[in-house]
C-alpha cells in the first residue's frame, strides 16, 4: 500500500498568480521611462543618487529585520520601490548622506515602525521626503541644485518661478511641449511628464494601480488650477503648468495610489484623488510651499481611514426576515 505524503491546505486551490514581488516589480518597470530619461538628462550623479537610494533602502529594511529577529522580507521588493521612488524625487546633486538619511526615514520611520508592509498609514516615500524637505530646504532647492549644469532650456523651476513672479511674467518661459518632454528643472525621475503618463497607463491597464485615484487626482489638479487661473490669470498659472511640473504626475500615478495609505472603495478613491489634487493646488497657490504634492498627499493619507468607511452595504446586512 503506497502512502504518499500529500499537501493538505484550505480552499481555494487556485491563485491568479499575483504576488507582492510582481506588484512591486511592475511598479519599478513602470517608473523606468522616467528614470532613464532622468539619467540621460542629469548624467552620472543621478545614477549615483538612484543606486544609493535603492540599495540603502533595501539595506535599512534588511538591517532592521535582522535586528528585530524577524523574517527577512526584502525579497518582496517593497523597500526597493520606496528607495527608487525617493531617489526619483531628489535632485541629482543630492549629497550621499541626504540620500541615506532619506531612505532611513522612509523605510524605518515611514514603514517599519508602523508594523512593516501593509501597516503604514502614510506613504513611506512621502514621510521620508517630507522630513528631508523640511529639514534641508536648501539642498532640495532645485534652482540651486543645478547651477553647474548647462541646459538648453529655461533653467528655472517652473512652480517656483510662477510663485515668485506670477503666471503672466513666466508665461513664455515654459512651453507645454518642453514641460511634457522633460525640458524643465526638477527631480531626477519626475520631470519627464510623458514617461510618467506612459508608466501610469501601463500600471492602470495591468491592474496594479486603481484608475480612480490617478484620474480623480488629475481632475482635482486641473479643476482647481482652472478656477484659480480664471479668477486671476496674471497671478495663477493654468492647469497644464501645474500638471506637468513639480511632482504632480509622479504623485498622481505612483505616490497617491500607494496601496496601504489609499482607500479601496470606489467613491472614497474618487474623493481621495480629487481632494489630494485640490489641497495641492491650495498649497501651491495660497500656501508658502512651491509644490504641495508631498504634504498634500500625506494630509489625505491621514483622512483615508475615515473616507474609506463609505462603502456599499454587504449582502444580507440590514435585511429583515422575510
Amino acid at each position, binding site marked *: 500500500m503506497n502512502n504518499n505524503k500529500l499537501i493538505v491546505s484550505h*480552499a481555494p486551490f487556485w491563485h*491568479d498568480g499575483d504576488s507582492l514581488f510582481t506588484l512591486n516589480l511592475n511598479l519599478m518597470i513602470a517608473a523606468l521611462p522616467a528614470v532613464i530619461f532622468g539619467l540621460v538628462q542629469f548624467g552620472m550623479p543621478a545614477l549615483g543618487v538612484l543606486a544609493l537610494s535603492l540599495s540603502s533602502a533595501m539595506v535599512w529594511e534588511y538591517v532592521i529585520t535582522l535586528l528585530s529577529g524577524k523574517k527577512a522580507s526584502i525579497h518582496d521588493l517593497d523597500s526597493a520601490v520606496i528607495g527608487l521612488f525617493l531617489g526619483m524625487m531628489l535632485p541629482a546633486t543630492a549629497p550621499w548622506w541626504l540620500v541615506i538619511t532619506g531612505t532611513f526615514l522612509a523605510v524605518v520611520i515611514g514603514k517599519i515602525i508602523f508594523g512593516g508592509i501593509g501597516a503604514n498609514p502614510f506613504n513611506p516615500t512621502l514621510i521620508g521626503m517630507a522630513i528631508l524637505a523640511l529639514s534641508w530646504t536648501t539642498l532640495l532647492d532645485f534652482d540651486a541644485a543645478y547651477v553647474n549644469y548647462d541646459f538648453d532650456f529655461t533653467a528655472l523651476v517652473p512652480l517656483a518661478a510662477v510663485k515668485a513672479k506670477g503666471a503672466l511674467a513666466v508665461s513664455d518661459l515654459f512651453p507645454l511641449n518642453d514641460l511634457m518632454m522633460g525640458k524643465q528643472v526638477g527631480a531626477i525621475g519626475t520631470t519627464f511628464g510623458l514617461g510618467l503618463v506612459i508608466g501610469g497607463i501601463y500600471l492602470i491597464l495591468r491592474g496594479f494601480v486603481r484608475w480612480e485615484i490617478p484620474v480623480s487626482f488629475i481632475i482635482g489638479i486641473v479643476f482647481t488650477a482652472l478656477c484659480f487661473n480664471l479668477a486671476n490669470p496674471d497671478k495663477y498659472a493654468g492647469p497644464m503648468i501645474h500638471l506637468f511640473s513639480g511632482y504632480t504626475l509622479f504623485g498622481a500615478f505612483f505616490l497617491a495610489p500607494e496601496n496601504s495609505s*489609499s482607500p479601496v472603495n470606489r467613491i472614497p478613491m474618487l474623493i481621495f484623488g480629487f481632494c489630494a489634487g485640490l489641497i495641492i493646488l491650495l498649497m501651491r497657490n495660497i500656501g508658502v510651499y512651491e509644490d504641495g504634492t508631498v504634504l498634500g498627499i500625506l494630509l489625505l493619507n491621514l483622512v483615508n481611514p475615515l473616507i474609506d468607511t463609505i462603502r456599499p452595504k454587504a449582502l444580507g446586512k440590514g435585511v429583515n426576515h422575510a
Partner: protein
Amino acid sequence: MIKRSFFALTRPRLGYDMPEPDPKEPKAIPVPSNLILLLHDPLDDARETFIKKGDKVEKGGKLHLYKDSKEYTISPVAGTIKIIDTYSDDFGNTSTYLVINTDQGLTAGTDDVQYELKDTIASADEYLRTLPGAPPLKTLADPDIKIDTIVITCADPDLLSTTHQYMALKFMDGIKEGIGVLKRITNVRKFCITVPENLNIKDEIDLAQVFRTSMIYPANLPQMILKDHLNMVLPAGKTPEDMGICFMSAEAVVSLARAYKTKAACHEKVLTIIGKQGTPYRVTAVIGTPLRRIFNAFSIHVNDHDRLVIGGPMKGFSTYTVHHPVQPDTDTVIVQDRDNIPELSDNPCVNCGKCVRICPAHIPVNILVRYLEAGLYQDAADRYDLLSCIECGLCAYVCTARIPIYQYIRLGKHELLKLNADA
C-alpha cells in the same frame, strides 16, 4: 489553473466549464475488493457498537453504528466489515469509517435489499439518504424546518466540474420523474431548476421553473441563485434552508427516481476527475471506492507533495490520503501536481483592494481579514460583515499578499459558532 490576464483593468472572470456536447458514457470503475464508507457518527469507546468487525453485510443493507443511532450508511456491496475506526475531517469533526471487504461472487450474484418505500418523506429518509448525489432528505424530513421551494441544480456550483450538467444532458427524464416523486412524497409545491445558459437542453421542462444561470463564477452558488433568480437576499448568517429553500443536485433527483422505481438503493456515483494536465475524465464508481482505484484506471500517478482536491478548486477540500473514498456528494476530484500548487504566505494585508472589488457580497475584506488575524471574531461579524460571506473563495484567489483569506473566514465562522454555543 486560470492565471490573471496580462491586462487586468477589470476584475478577473472565472468561467464555468461545459461538458462536451454529446458526452460519452462514463468509464465504469469495477467494484474494488475493499470499500470505505463514512458514517457521520463519532465512535464512542465506552459503548458497544451495534455493528462489529467481522459482521456480514448485505448489498443495500443499512448500517447503524449504535442501536439508537440516527445516522446510517448503506453498504453498496455484500461482504464483511474489516475495520471500524475514527476519521476526522479538516475542522476536527470526528466520524467513523468502515472498511468493507467485498465478497465479489455474492455482490455480483445478488440483488439489492428491497426497501418498503412508502410515499412519505420519512420513509424516503429512512433508506435513501446516501444515494448518489446525497439528497437532502434529512432536511426535508425535519419537522422543524419548513421547506416550500426545492431548487434542483443542473449547474455545477464550482469550477471545472461538469457532473451536474452531464446528469442534465443525459438523464432529463430521470429528473422529471424525480420531481414527480418529490411532489408525491413532500408538501413542497414550488420546484425550480438551474440550467447553465449555454447548456443545450433539448427537452421541454414544464414541471419546474427554469433558471438559466450565468457561466461566470460564482453565479451558481446557492446565495447567488437566491439573489439573481428568486429575488431574495439571504440575511447575514442565515442558510437557504432557514428561508424555506432547499438545494438538491440533479444526480440526487435522478437517483431518487430510480430508487422509487426499483424499491432499492443505487450506488454508482458519477464523477469528474481532473488529471494533472487538466484533462477531464468522467467515471462512475461505486460509493466507497478509494480514489486510488480511479487514478490507477487512468494511469494518474500521485506523487509526494501533490494535492488531491475533492470538490472544485474554489470551494473543495484537500485530503491527506489517496484512499479517501468516493462519497455520495463527491462530484469532482482534482489532482494537482506539486509544481502547480500556488504558494501561500504569512504576509500582512497590503490593502490593494482586489478582494474588495471582486467580492460578490460587498464585504470589506481588507479590514475583515485584519480582525480575523487578530482573532476578534465577534467584532468581525458585527462590524465587518463576516456572516455575509457566501464562501466563494474569490478573495483568496486574487490576494496579492497571498493570505489564505477564505481559511480565515471559515475559521472565524466556526469559532463564532462555538462562542455562541458556549454562551
